[in-house]
């Protein structure tokens, strides 16, 4: 009975793994039918007696579940958007350009979830259950600004009605609970703000882990350059003859380059000159990075001065100086870096990595300088807040004094002031949010404009001016543009970083980003198909997938820092936003724990935040890191050892077959020690290995070793012993001791199980 059950299970497993076998469909179909019939026949037989109906029911449910799962998988695949578009791009440009669009689509998915969180838990409750526009001061446009509130220039500056809307932090009310459902908006705002980072972190790390599993970590990049070029350079998705020609050309070029490279590695050049040039190049680049940082700081300081002047006196340029300068730097500096990098004379792949690193440093430096300058502004605003608070209190006292002196009472009714007339604080959070929104908008504008001018206009000019120009524009100087993968991917990553930073202060920013990504997908696929040509030189920075994910992770951390810092240290504005009136923003959480949750949870939190508990936890994490690092090093070493063993094993086999004389030094020494040369085994009978790949029958004539697979693992010592040990064909007992080296080789070379304790011990480390 049990044996029958086991067999049924085996058949089921066979059915599940049939698609992994490289057999012909016909063979698989017959096997499948056989296995399915067997399972059906005997599964029914198993369910005899009382539990028969239940058993049959269970079986039916299992089948339905499998079918349901399969349908769901099909449905999920059908739901993935833009698959056709991306496939189009892939067949024309190859998989590396398409990988940008796949990344864009992934970003879109991530942002959709963030949008869901932000809108569902913060914006919609405020709109549905909170107070409407115009009811309280923070939701109303001040009297002085009402005249210009609807102007186009005010709106593009995100002042006026935009400033006092759900787009920005300042709109949200600080009531502890709103509406029928008693929804706690301030708490939700804080938790969503933190949750956005948590979710993004989880998704990015999960994707990185998945990529690392699938494709290897690119650690051994240098090992197999030629083989990889040979075996993996052709992109099977290419369906367009022009692209195929390009691909041929690039493959040929890369072959020739690597061959020359190999030869050049032996050449000895003027090391000192090269080093000097490299140092010079790095100095130049550092200077330009410093220069750009200073420029941004200067411009932001000027914008603060401008903010205090009358709006009408400023030109458009002066109003948008900051964004303009930042975008300009982003456009101009990367080509500058590339030009300076010519001095360095690196291998193209290394040069690409340097270039990406430098662009990254540029963007980071710019962003952080911008943040620091902004920070000064925030502090200034906080200072001015104090004055305004004093002014408000003064006004209130004055009103009370006037009233009581006029009516001669001490019971003063509250002041009845229209919300638009109330004195307002500067609300630094909205100002910060506004800066991020303006930056994002200008980034979008610059990107789209660049594509329009740099790619589309260029293509139009090349195509139409070619008829009346002296040299061939298409083949010669401007020609058509190539799609700049790394530039675009970096742009996407930094845009996301800005969104992460600004989402806490401007909840509408996430919605804006979704619109941007959506339009970007359509716009860029159109531009690529219409105006770009496939790359001439294709060298993929292998493992670049994880490289960009790693960058994204870094940017996530860096954008997390300012937000967490402001939550923890800066005090919120006193009259705008969901945290107004509190000392610090996270006080909401403390309040909730104190008032709404049972007492013991409060105690738990107090204990958990005790430094005495946190320090050991941090120490434990550091130790775990160290341990995992050591384990991974151990695995790498084991890998190297295994390779060496495989090599030795093969050498031994070959030599045995060829001249029966060991060339392995260890074996030779051993042979000299032992009598009768008993270490050389008699010619081993070639047994067919347990799994024989379906190799062509014609191969049999060429020698049996062709049908062998090297099994990397030791033969399973727990295999049923299929034949009795028989006459000892191995070395005599007394040679067991020093055997491990060569014996291992023999043990690995034979298929079949030798059910002795030998093999497992030999493979221990």
């Amino acid at each position, binding site marked *: 009975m049990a044996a029958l059950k086991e067999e049924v299970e085996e058949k089921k497993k066979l059915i599940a793994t*049939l*698609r*992994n076998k*490289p057999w*012909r*469909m*016909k063979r698989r*179909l017959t096997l*499948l039918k056989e296995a399915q019939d067997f399972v059906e026949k005997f599964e029914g037989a198993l369910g005899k007696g009382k539990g028969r109906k239940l058993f049959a029911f269970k079986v039916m449910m299992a089948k339905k579940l499998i*079918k349901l799962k*399969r349908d769901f998988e*099909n449905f999920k695949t*059908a739901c993935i958007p833009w698959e056709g578009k991306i*496939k189009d791009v892939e*067949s024309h440009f190859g*998989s590396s350009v398409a990988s940008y669009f796949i990344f864009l689509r992934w970003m879109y998915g991530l942002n959709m979830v963030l949008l869901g969180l932000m809108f569902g838990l913060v914006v919609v409750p405020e709109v549905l259950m909170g107070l409407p526009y115009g009811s309280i001061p923070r939701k109303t446009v001040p009297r002085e600004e009402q005249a210009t509130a609807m102007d186009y220039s005010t709106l593009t500056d995100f002042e006026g009605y935009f400033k006092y809307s759900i787009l920005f932090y300042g709109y949200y009310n600080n009531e502890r609970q709103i509406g029928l459902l008693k929804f706690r908006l301030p708490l939700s705002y804080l938790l969503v703000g933190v949750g956005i980072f948590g979710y993004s972190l989880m998704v990015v790390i999960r994707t990185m882990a998945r990529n690392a599993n*699938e*494709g*290897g970590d690119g650690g*051994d990049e240098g*090992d*197999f*350059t*030629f*083989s*990889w070029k040979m*075996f*993996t*350079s*052709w*992109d*099977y*998705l290419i369906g*367009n003859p022009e*692209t*195929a020609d390009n691909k*041929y*050309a690039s*493959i*040929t070029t890369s*072959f*020739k380059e*690597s*061959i020359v490279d*190999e030869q050049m590695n032996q050449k000895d050049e003027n090391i000192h000159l090269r080093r000097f040039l490299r140092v010079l190049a790095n100095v130049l680049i550092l200077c330009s990075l410093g220069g750009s940082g200073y420029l941004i700081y200067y411009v932001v300081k000027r914008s603060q001065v401008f903010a205090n002047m009358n709006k009408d006196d400023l030109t458009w340029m002066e109003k948008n100086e900051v964004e303009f300068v930042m975008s300009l730097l982003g456009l101009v500096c990367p080509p500058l870096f590339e030009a300076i990098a010519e001095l360095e004379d690196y291998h193209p792949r290394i040069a690409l990595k340097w270039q990406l690193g430098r662009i990254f440093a540029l963007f980071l430096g710019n962003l952080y300088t911008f943040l620091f300058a902004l920070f000064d502004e925030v502090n200034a605003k906080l200072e001015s807040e104090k004055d305004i608070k004093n002014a408000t209190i003064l006004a209130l006292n004055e009103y009370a004094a006037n009233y009581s002196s006029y009516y001669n009472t001490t019971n003063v009714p509250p002041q009845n002031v229209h919300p638009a007339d109330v004195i307002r604080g500067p609300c630094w959070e909205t100002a910060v949010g506004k800066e991020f929104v303006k930056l994002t908008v200008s980034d979008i504008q610059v990107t789209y404009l660049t594509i329009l001018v740099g790619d589309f206009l260029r293509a139009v000019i090349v195509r139409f001016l070619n008829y009346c120009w002296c040299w061939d524009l298409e083949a010669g100087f401007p020609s058509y543009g190539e799609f700049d993968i790394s530039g675009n991917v970096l742009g996407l990553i930094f845009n996301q970083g800005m969104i992460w930073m600004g989402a806490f202060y401007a909840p509408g920013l996430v919605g804006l980003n979704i619109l941007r990504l959506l339009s970007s997908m359509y716009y860029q696929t159109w531009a690529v198909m219409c105006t770009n040509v496939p790359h001439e030189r294709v060298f993929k920075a*292998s*493992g670049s997938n994880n490289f960009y994910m790693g960058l994204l992770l870094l940017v996530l951390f860096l954008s997390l820092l300012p937000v967490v810092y402001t939550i923890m240290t800066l005090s919120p504005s006193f009259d705008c936003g969901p945290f107004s009136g509190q000392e610090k923003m996270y006080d909401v959480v403390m309040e909730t724990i104190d008032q709404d949750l049972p007492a013991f949870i409060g105690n738990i939190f107090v204990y958990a935040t005790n430094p005495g508990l946190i320090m050991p936890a941090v120490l434990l994490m550091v130790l775990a890191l160290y341990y995992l690092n050591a384990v991974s090093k151990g695995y790498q070493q084991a890998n190297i050892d295994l390779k060496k063993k495989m*090599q030795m094993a*093969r*050498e031994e*086999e*070959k030599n045995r077959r060829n001249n029966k004389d060991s060339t392995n030094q260890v074996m030779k020494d051993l042979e000299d020690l032992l009598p009768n040369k008993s270490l050389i085994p008699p010619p081993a009978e070639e047994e067919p290995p347990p799994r024989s*790949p379906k*190799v*062509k029958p*014609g*191969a049999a004539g060429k020698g049996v070793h*062709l*049908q062998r697979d*090297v099994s990397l693992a030791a033969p399973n010592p727990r295999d049923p012993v299929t034949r009795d040990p028989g006459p000892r064909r191995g070395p005599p007992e007394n040679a067991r001791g020093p055997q491990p080296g060569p014996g291992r080789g023999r043990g690995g070379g034979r298929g079949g199980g030798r059910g002795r304790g030998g093999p497992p011990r030999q493979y221990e480390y």
Partner: protein
Amino acid sequence: MGTTASQLGKDLLSEYQELTFLTKQEILLAHKRFTELLTKDEKDLPNTRVPAERILTLPELKSNPFRKRICHVFSTSEQKDGSLTFEDFLDLLSAFSDSATLEIKSHYAFRIFDFDDDGTLDCGDLEKLVNCLTGETDETRLTTEEMRQLINNILEESDIDKDGTVNLSEFQHVISRSPDFVSSFKIVL
């Protein structure tokens, strides 16, 4: 068991789903594209075999330097002429699909690159491989000297047992470390 007329039976469809890495839509699309290649009378016969020339008119295969080898490897005909039935076609698509495992892909890649079908990649195979990759014209081909150097480098890297050929396990070992292989060894209709 084969395809009759223009409809794929439901049983057969679910069996194909079980046995390949393709989803239902992909199998139906493959069926549609395959029947487009058939002439009118062939459409009524079950289990028709489509000759290699017609298969090679598919745009996905037309520009591929290994198209003839692919047809040859997946063909089950006795004459070894590269003709494919619908099931062979499904086999092909399954091996080249997105969800196929690395083992399957590397197994078939090895068979495709093995031009003389002897179970190993020796110098002759590698030379033919390089010539396929560098295109047909004389100016794009490598010189004999470059070819020799290239093949030496490759054998140095991948031939672990130093027997002058690359066998299946060495090939799989090289391929498994490559991050690009799975994403480039794909054909989608």
